[in-house]
């Protein structure tokens, strides 16, 4: 549905405003204050949300558990207090006109996923019980346990059902691919939006057009979300599907990750400091390089003698020498990790602050793989007047990352080892192409980032029933991707390495956000409450950069100034603007039945010139059925909420995808360099956004007096008008593809989260959270006349084809093999391979199960652990496929003692060029994190003039159980590519052992 954009915005705004309920008369305002404590320990509970039921009024508790709500109309009010991990507490309070009232609460710990608040697209917080969808809330580990969580992607891994974080390798600085409820788009990004304190931030990956790096080191690329500092995060909310995302508008189809950074609490200054030190270990057993040697049965001459040669009777095996460069001449070192940080928070009721800074140093398992990062954050909140609240959030990052060469890379270290020789050599030490790592380490590939993210949020409550919220902010990123190799040093036969070269690419990314909205609440007759919202949202993403390259680097120089030939320069200017408006109406009945309807409209600069405005509707219903009077009250079933939601949202086309254009080039004619144009893109003026719609339904069940809770959600999501890069007939002589809205993709799944406080006592407490999800992704349609889209490593190992998951592995199958003469070795003729490619599986996990548990002993020792299972997917072990099928230095084709299955897979790769034998089951169980925290007694802490003192010993990537035969079932040489997934000489995940001291003053 789309209408001319000229009237859409006006209609949205005016209609929404007129839909607001009749306003109650403003009352003489008073204030309510009090304290929230733990019902057992009586300890203050910080960051609890206290709301005046039926109004937009509320406050959060400070570190001392105290809160103040101002501008409260006179009368009797219900207060509700919510905090993740506690059962909600309610109480009534009567406030005289202009007076004050006090209300204290004691909250009982519960595995209560029913309670809590989430931040919505309108910028308002909303009680979870009011939502028809099921956003995930990730509880950030305490500061000590963050020792086991060195990055943002580690923080999200395994902590939310339906959220898959696929780490691409163990290189320090490598990123991850995040998929929420599966992939929706054939051609556009499937990455979620990330919002920090209300503003969108840069989360571009390679396939998104903007990119996280412009330098190719073979595969690994950083993730921009890993610029986020886990130390500064207070909470993470993940809104998973269109059912809950309609108001986020175009661009939100892949889910939204909302990050709230830490806030100051009113009270005296409270200092937290920590120091972390650890080691990073390479723990992989790399395979040997083999070469069967024998004598020719016809000439008696020495010759290579592989298993299939033996089977063919052309040689007699003499020996199988082998060599393992990575093990015998190891390029690895024990890396190190160090982090030092401090923060202080405090303030008054009128002004609070949170100031933090930390410095991080990580050295990977190669001597050149280094990350240096400094973070600073300053967050303020000011109660400017009883009606006006202003928050300012600022974060700054500066980092310097140096990557090694690896993955699909001639100069890679892992490929150099496992593709290397079967024997030692005094110069190359058996490394491929004669490049020992010490020579390759001279290639200096770096990325320096200076990033500022800031936002300001103002909330003005001129009337008791009306709240206006404005959010504006920006995310600015200055990035310098640069690479240098000095000339004449590397053992390369030809340029550019033999000459030396310099690449220097400087980029500026700016993401600008401006949102404004209004929410009005009114109590209606018959126990009904109305909440109406409307707003406008503006988002502007700008990516600008210059790229420069030159060769023949003057010895002793390291910049472009020293280059002398083969220059290349380029400039990139990309921009994408979204302007949208929304309105939302919620009706609540007796605060236990909530029905919400909303509509969002968007226009975007990347839509085709012939396309106008697009609208996304949503509908949600939530029923806290256990609070109905007729519901049987038992300890067994202590709470129950039923919920359902429907919504639609979209994904905008990429920059320039709607445009037809020519690219400027240079050509030499009669000795003169002259300007020219090369054929660029074939645009589509009808291009419109992809539209994803979803229905989800589920329940939240509290058991055993809420000591255990179960949340179960089913979702069914369909993306229509999916952008398909239709392959153009090459005979047209134009571009390779043209984007058209043709496809349809579906995702269905079931998500469950079980929280249990298994034991709860003064001396021993044990809680556990189990996340579980199953999913099914399928291409329903690619569009009439569109043949399967074939891609992947090797050119055709993956494809998008109707009836199969996106990016599915395909290959010509091994139909059978038989050692017909029982000689123990297979000849090529003893392996049968099919003619046509068949489906081999999906590279994306379809089953996930994660167990996160915490055990507290004697209130001074706490053990936390995270274990994760993933399965249902395959991984293309192209490392071994390449060793067997191309370099023939694998065990399977050199040692007759190898299994017939291994030989058959190798022969299929070598003789029939089908890699299917290496598209392996990639199920695994991993022990991701273990942290052991000792908290010092108060008197010991006081000896150091501290109020708190703890020591944490942590480990990460501690164990893996898998049938996958490659180095690691999580590797991806395709890094954050939209779909390309393969294990191709990537650095396997490394193991961390860290310790951290935390001191609080």
């Amino acid at each position: 549905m789309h209408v001319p954009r000229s009237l859409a915005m006006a209609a949205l705004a005016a209609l929404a405003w007129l839909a607001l309920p009749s306003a109650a008369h403003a009352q003489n305002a008073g204030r309510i204050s009090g304290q929230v404590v733990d019902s057992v320990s009586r300890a203050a509970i910080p960051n609890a949300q206290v709301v005046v039921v039926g109004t937009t009024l509320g406050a959060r508790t400070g570190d001392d558990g105290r809160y103040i709500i101002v501008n409260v109309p006179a009368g009797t009010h219900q207060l509700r207090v919510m905090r993740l991990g506690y059962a909600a507490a309610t109480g009534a309070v009567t406030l005289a006109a202009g007076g004050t009232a006090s209300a204290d609460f004691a909250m009982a710990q519960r595995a209560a996923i029913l309670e809590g608040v989430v931040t919505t697209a309108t910028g308002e917080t909303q009680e979870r019980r009011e939502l028809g969808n099921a956003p995930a809330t990730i509880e950030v580990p305490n500061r000590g346990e963050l020792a086991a969580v060195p990055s943002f992607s580690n923080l999200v891994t395994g902590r939310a059902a339906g959220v898959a974080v696929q780490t691409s390798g163990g290189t320090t600085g490598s990123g991850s691919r995040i998929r929420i409820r599966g992939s929706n788009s054939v051609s556009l990004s499937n990455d979620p939006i990330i919002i920090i304190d209300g503003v969108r931030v840069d989360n571009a990956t390679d396939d998104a057009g903007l990119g996280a790096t412009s330098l190719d080191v073979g595969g690994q690329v950083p993730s921009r979300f890993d610029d986020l500092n886990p130390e500064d995060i207070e909470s993470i909310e993940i809104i998973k599907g269109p059912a809950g995302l309609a108001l986020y508008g175009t661009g939100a189809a892949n889910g939204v990750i909302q990050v709230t950074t830490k806030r100051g609490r009113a009270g005296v200054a409270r200092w937290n400091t920590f120091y972390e030190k650890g080691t990073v270990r390479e723990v992989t057993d790399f395979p040997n390089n083999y070469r069967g040697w024998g004598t020719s049965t016809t000439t008696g001459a020495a010759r290579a003698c592989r298993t299939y040669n033996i089977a063919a009777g052309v040689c007699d095996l003499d020996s199988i020498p082998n060599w393992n460069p990575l093990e015998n001449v190891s390029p690895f070192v024990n890396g190190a990790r160090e982090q030092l940080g401090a923060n202080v928070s405090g303030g008054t009721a009128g002004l609070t602050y949170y100031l933090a800074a930390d410095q991080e140093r990580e050295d990977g398992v190669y001597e050149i793989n280094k990350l240096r990062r400094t973070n600073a954050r300053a967050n303020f909140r000011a109660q400017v007047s009883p009606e006006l609240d202003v928050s300012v959030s600022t974060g700054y990052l500066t980092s310097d990352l140096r990557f090694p060469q690896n993955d699909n890379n001639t100069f890679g270290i892992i490929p150099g080892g496992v593709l290397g020789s079967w024997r030692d050599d005094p110069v190359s030490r058996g490394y491929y192409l004669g490049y020992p790592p010490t020579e390759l380490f001279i290639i200096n590939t770096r990325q320096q980032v200076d990033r500022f993210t800031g936002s300001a949020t103002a909330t003005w409550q001129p009337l008791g029933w009306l709240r206006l919220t404005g959010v504006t902010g920006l995310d600015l990123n200055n990035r310098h991707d640069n690479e240098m190799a000095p000339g004449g040093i590397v053992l390369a036969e030809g340029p550019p390495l033999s000459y030396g070269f310099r690449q220097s690419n400087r980029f500026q990314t700016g993401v600008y956000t401006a949102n404004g909205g209004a929410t009005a609440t009114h109590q209606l007759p018959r126990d009904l409450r109305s909440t109406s919202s409307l707003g406008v949202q503006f988002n502007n993403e700008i990516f600008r950069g210059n790229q420069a390259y030159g060769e023949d680097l003057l010895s002793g120089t390291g910049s472009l100034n020293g280059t002398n030939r083969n220059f290349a320069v380029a400039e990139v200017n990309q921009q994408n603007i979204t302007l949208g408006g929304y309105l939302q109406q919620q009706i609540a009945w007796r605060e236990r039945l909530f029905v919400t309807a909303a509509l969002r409209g968007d226009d975007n600069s990347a839509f085709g010139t012939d396309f106008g405005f697009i609208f996304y509707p949503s509908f949600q219903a939530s029923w806290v059925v256990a609070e109905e009077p007729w519901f049987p009250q038992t300890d067994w079933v202590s709470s129950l909420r039923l919920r359902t939601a429907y919504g639609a949202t979209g994904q905008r086309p990429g920059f320039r995808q709607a445009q037809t254009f020519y690219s400027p080039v240079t050509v030499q004619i009669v000795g003169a360099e002259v300007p020219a144009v090369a054929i660029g893109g074939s645009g589509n003026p009808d291009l419109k956004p992809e539209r994803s719609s979803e229905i989800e339904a589920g329940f939240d069940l509290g058991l055993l007096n809420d000591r255990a809770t179960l949340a179960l959600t089913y979702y069914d999501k369909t993306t229509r008008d999916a952008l398909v890069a239709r392959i153009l007939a090459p005979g047209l002589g134009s571009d390779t593809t043209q984007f058209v809205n043709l496809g349809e993709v579906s995702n269905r799944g079931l998500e469950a989260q079980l929280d249990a406080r298994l034991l709860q006592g003064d001396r021993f407490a044990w809680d556990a959270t189990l996340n579980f999800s199953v999913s099914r992704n399928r291409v329903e349609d690619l569009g009439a006349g569109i043949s399967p889209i074939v891609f992947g490593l090797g050119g055709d190992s993956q494809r998008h084809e109707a009836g199969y998951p996106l990016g599915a592995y395909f290959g010509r199958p091994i139909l059978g093999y038989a050692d017909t003469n029982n000689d123990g070795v297979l000849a090529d003729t003893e392996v049968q391979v099919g003619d046509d490619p068949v489906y081999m599986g999906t590279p994306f996990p379809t089953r996930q199960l994660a167990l996160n548990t915490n055990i507290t002993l004697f209130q001074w020792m706490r053990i936390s652990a995270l274990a994760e299972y993933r399965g249902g997917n395959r991984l293309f072990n192209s490392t071994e496929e390449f060793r067997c099928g191309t370099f023939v230095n694998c065990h399977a084709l050199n040692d007759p003692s190898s299994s017939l299955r291994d030989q058959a897979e190798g022969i299929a790769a070598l003789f029939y060029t089908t890699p299917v034998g290496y598209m392996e089951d990639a199920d695994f169980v991993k022990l991701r994190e273990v942290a052991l925290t000792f908290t010092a007694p108060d008197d010991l802490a006081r000896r150091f003039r501290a109020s708190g003192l703890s020591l944490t010993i942590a480990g990460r990537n501690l164990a893996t159980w898998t049938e996958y035969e490659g180095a690691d079932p999580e590797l991806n040489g395709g890094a954050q590519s939209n779909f390309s997934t393969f294990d191709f000489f990537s650095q396997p995940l490394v193991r961390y052992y860290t310790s951290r001291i935390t001191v609080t003053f």
Partner: protein
Amino acid sequence: MHRHASLRPLAVRLLAAGSIGAAALALSACSIDDILHVDDPDVASPGSLTGPEALPVLRGGAFSEFQVSYGGSDGAFQTEGWITLSALLGDEFENVETFTDRLDIDQRAMVLTNATLTNNYLDLHRARRAAEVAAEAYAEFDPGAPEQSEVLSLAGFTYVMFGEYFCPGVPYSRQLPSGQSEFGQPTTTDETLDLAIARFEEALDIAVAAEADDAANLARVGLGRALLDKGDYAAAAAAVAGVPTDFEYLIEYSVNTPRQGNGLYDFVYNQQRWRVTDAESGEGLPYRSDDDPRVQWFEPDEIGFDNESEIFYQAKYDDLADDIVLASGIEARLIEAEAALAAGNYATAGTGTLAILNALRAAEGIADLPAVAGADAQEDQLFKERAYWLWLTGHRLGDMRRLVRQYGRDAAAVYPSGDYHKGGEAYGTQISFPIPQDEQNNPNYAGCLGPG
């Protein structure tokens, strides 16, 4: 009293609604398009490439696309180019690397999804269309210019390469200014060559009228080559009769940008992907062991990209900026020599095949060829001379196909056959490039109409 307490709520709402609605209407009516407008200075829109001032840029585009498609490119573009691919399928290069796509070409066993084939097939069509678009622009804004002749000849050479390299059945389509596609019909090899001949004849007429000698000679050699491919030997010889022997038309390469680098240099010197052959599989010509000055190569004592095979570098293009001869007076003489042979005029002094060949050799200080007897031997002698004179200029594959098509040779005796030099499966039976699968997006696609 609260400052808003005296206002009536409904009035507040109506006032606010009116204000916001009016503001939003004003915003939406006058400036949403402005708000959403983004500049795109990095590329040129089709509308900016019209009029006579666009002619040099369009001409440059024609040369640039042809340069990439013909001799490949360097750097991130990493385009092999048709000289290399035809050398791999023929007998000039052997593959010493690991990429399946290009191994399959060397092994004469390509599948239709071969990505290298697909990319280079597209490049050749882009070169064709860029030349034709430029020619159309000249016809409209500066008809009769020598540059019009040149770009017409470039278009003609793309058809020659389609005719020489591909099986019959290639369709020639185009995208209209409206963005719609106009799909061509499959063409036979002769039909393709007729399209080339039409371009060359038009180019020749324009060049002669403009007294542009180089452009005219380029068109003459192209015309002769196309006619030779059709087996019209006498007409071919007549077409090239006026071309001086020292004429050369170069496609220029440069270190100015990576796109302009010579791919024949880059893929060998920088990447060690293929080597000069020596009687590949027994059927190929002995390029190395003949030690002929026209076939320049050396042994660097290195191994190829596959970390196993010995490599022999071509030395004809030993710099990234080395230009490549597209057409020459030597080729004109070779065409005349073949026409003489076809006319039964092998040994006639001065104008016979042997005399023409030896005159060329003498000019380079190469010893005379001996006279040989018998048609097969004379053909072998002629085609070997063509192979050496025109080595690594994209002629050899077309000659090998002509040996099969026009001279009745057995393909297995002309093309590398039998055991593949890198092991594994034996050489296949392809003698030309198939039409890639992506061309199936043309509704008229019919695949190969014959073996070539």
